[in-house]
């Protein structure tokens, strides 16, 4: 009897301990951090870190709009962030808890302010471009030595696509990424909000649709790396991760990333704290930890995405800071465009267009 009592008390004490220990729940994109950083955070701060991943903004947004997601830190892309701010999904950052804000890069801060004025609700985690991932040997084999690997002609010209179909082409399953690129190819404003202009993407995509093997937003990393496909319209860092996986596997596959000459979508993934975060204080600690120059550099060195942290640049590996595919030069940077969210009516048109592109209905 006494023994049982002792055990029970001990158990109760343990439970109480578990409740009082701080924890922070982070919801980030898949393949988007060096996991050593997560352990480092726990060791440095003593806060338990629970880290979950997603692979589409839509999934994150639905959780945010449903409310009570239980997460303390989430990472939406700029245009989605903007809409979620309007819906009242986030809380203002307490900048006094974020001394590392001084490390941030004003060039990027200016651009993210178009989604989040004064960067009130978010900090930049990573930014990148959406462009062309190619298995260079296969593409040259199919299209010849002068294959247009740095041009949107590669994926929007049916003649090229017909030939590329035999070695496999994947597109992101994200209308907000593909439609601006298609509009850019057509010579229209990528950020157009005119339904008639957007509808023009339909016929263009219908022509190349038969040659696209799959629309998917994460499978192409492995597919490119193991040579299953030869072209992916995807995110810069993901393609570069594929490049590294192929190099590690030493399987004779060489992957390259190219920003299309006519410009590409520049996007910003922003860390923000949900309005109903259970533990906002720990969330701030996490944001501050991420904004530490060395930590941020470690993350970028691992995932091959540029970050919005100027102080981190001195710690970046040469193959990151020196790679124009990751940190584009001035001229390329000026060619990059960004987009703003669609209103609900237009969003329906866009989704419907996307469904008809994918399924033919």
């Amino acid at each position, binding site marked *: 009897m006494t023994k049982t009592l002792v055990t029970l008390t001990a158990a109760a004490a343990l439970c109480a301990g578990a409740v009082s220990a701080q924890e922070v729940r982070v919801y980030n994109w898949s393949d988007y951090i060096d996991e050593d950083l997560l352990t480092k955070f726990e060791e440095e701060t003593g806060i338990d870190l629970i880290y979950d991943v997603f692979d*589409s903004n*839509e*999934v994150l*947004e*639905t959780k*945010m*709009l*449903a*409310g009570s997601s239980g997460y303390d830190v989430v990472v939406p892309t700029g245009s989605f962030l903007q*809409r979620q701010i*309007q*819906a*009242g*999904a986030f809380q203002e950052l307490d900048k006094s808890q974020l001394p590392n804000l001084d490390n941030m890069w004003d060039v990027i801060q200016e651009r993210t302010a178009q989604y989040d004025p004064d960067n009130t609700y978010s900090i930049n985690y990573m930014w990148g471009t959406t462009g062309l991932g190619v298995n260079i040997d296969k593409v040259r084999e199919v299209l010849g030595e002068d294959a247009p690997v740095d041009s949107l002609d590669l994926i929007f010209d049916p003649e090229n696509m017909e030939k590329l179909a035999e070695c496999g082409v994947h597109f992101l*399953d994200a*209308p907000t990424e593909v439609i601006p690129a298609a509009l850019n190819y057509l010579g229209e404003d990528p950020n157009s909000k005119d339904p008639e202009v957007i509808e023009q993407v339909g016929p263009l995509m219908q022509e190349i649709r038969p040659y*696209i*093997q*799959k*629309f998917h937003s994460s499978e192409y990393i492995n597919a490119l790396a*193991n040579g*299953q496909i030869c072209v992916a319209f995807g995110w810069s860092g993901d393609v570069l991760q594929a490049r590294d996986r192929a190099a590690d596997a030493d399987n004779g596959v060489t992957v390259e990333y190219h920003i299309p000459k006519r410009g590409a979508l520049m996007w910003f993934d922003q860390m923000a704290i949900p*309005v109903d975060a259970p533990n906002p204080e720990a969330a701030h600690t996490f944001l501050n930890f991420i904004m530490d120059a060395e930590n941020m550099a470690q993350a970028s060195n691992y995932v091959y995405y540029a970050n919005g942290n100027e102080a981190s640049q001195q710690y970046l590996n040469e193959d990151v800071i020196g790679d124009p595919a990751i940190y584009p030069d001035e001229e390329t940077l000026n060619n990059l465009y960004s987009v703003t969210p669609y209103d*609900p009516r237009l*969003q*329906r048109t866009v*989704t*419907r267009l*996307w*469904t*008809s592109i*994918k*399924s*033919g*209905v």
Partner: protein
Amino acid sequence: MRRLLIAVPYLWLLALFLIPFLIVFKISLSDITLSIPPYSPNLDLSAGWSGLVDFVRALDFENFVFLTQDDLYWKAYLSSVWIAFVSTLITLAVGYPIAYGMARADRSWQPTLLMLVILPFWTSFLIRVYSWMGILSTEGLLNQLLMNLWIIDEPLQILNTTTAVYIGIVYTYLPFMILPIYAALEKMDDALLEAAEDLGCSRLEAFWLVTWPLSRGGVIAGCFLVFIPAIGEFVIPSLLGGSDTLMIGKVLWEEFFSNRDWPVASAVAIVLLLILIVPIVLFQRNEQKAREAEG
């Protein structure tokens, strides 16, 4: 005591079916907004009776009308019903012989065989579907096997097609077909077959006149257990199917996630429920009549 016993299943239905249904129905009558949650109106009980009246006034059926204006929804419903129907037939064709074999096997073997059917459930459903991606992909096990055997020269494109969806559904739901049929066959008295043969039936006739009718209950149960979840299936078509595999589960996903339009998504779900429930109720009524006529 008896009342209490009857109340249990009704409470179950109320809590797990009727209340969720009413919530979804309510959302299907509201409008999309940019807020948390992303629709309005929300029932405000503190406003009392007038709040309830205002709430009901704000509801309308425009989301259901919307579904009729775009042929996407009907095509998706039809295509889902078709895929579920074909999968059910294939599952039956594969499952019946297995269940029959199990029921005919030596008694001492039956627990083991039953175990083998249930065993795959011990692994997560998602992982099993992922393994199929590994088997069916162009670089996958199946294609390598066929190429090594010189049956094909070029890898077959099976993954990301509707064929892969059929394979996935048949594989996943096969135990749901086998188990009820096995349960029905296992109860059958072998003496009936002997009697049929004594009376001049060939083995095939005996099967058709005795075994099949006696297993009919199991077949019907199995078909429902496969057909109903297969219609609304989302995971299998999204992992194994191609971008052109049109199923209502995916359309529902798009409405909910891409359009953030919970009201239309709810309307799609309600219509799906009606499509499923009406034929099932009619069928059961028919069965009951047949049984009464026999009795």
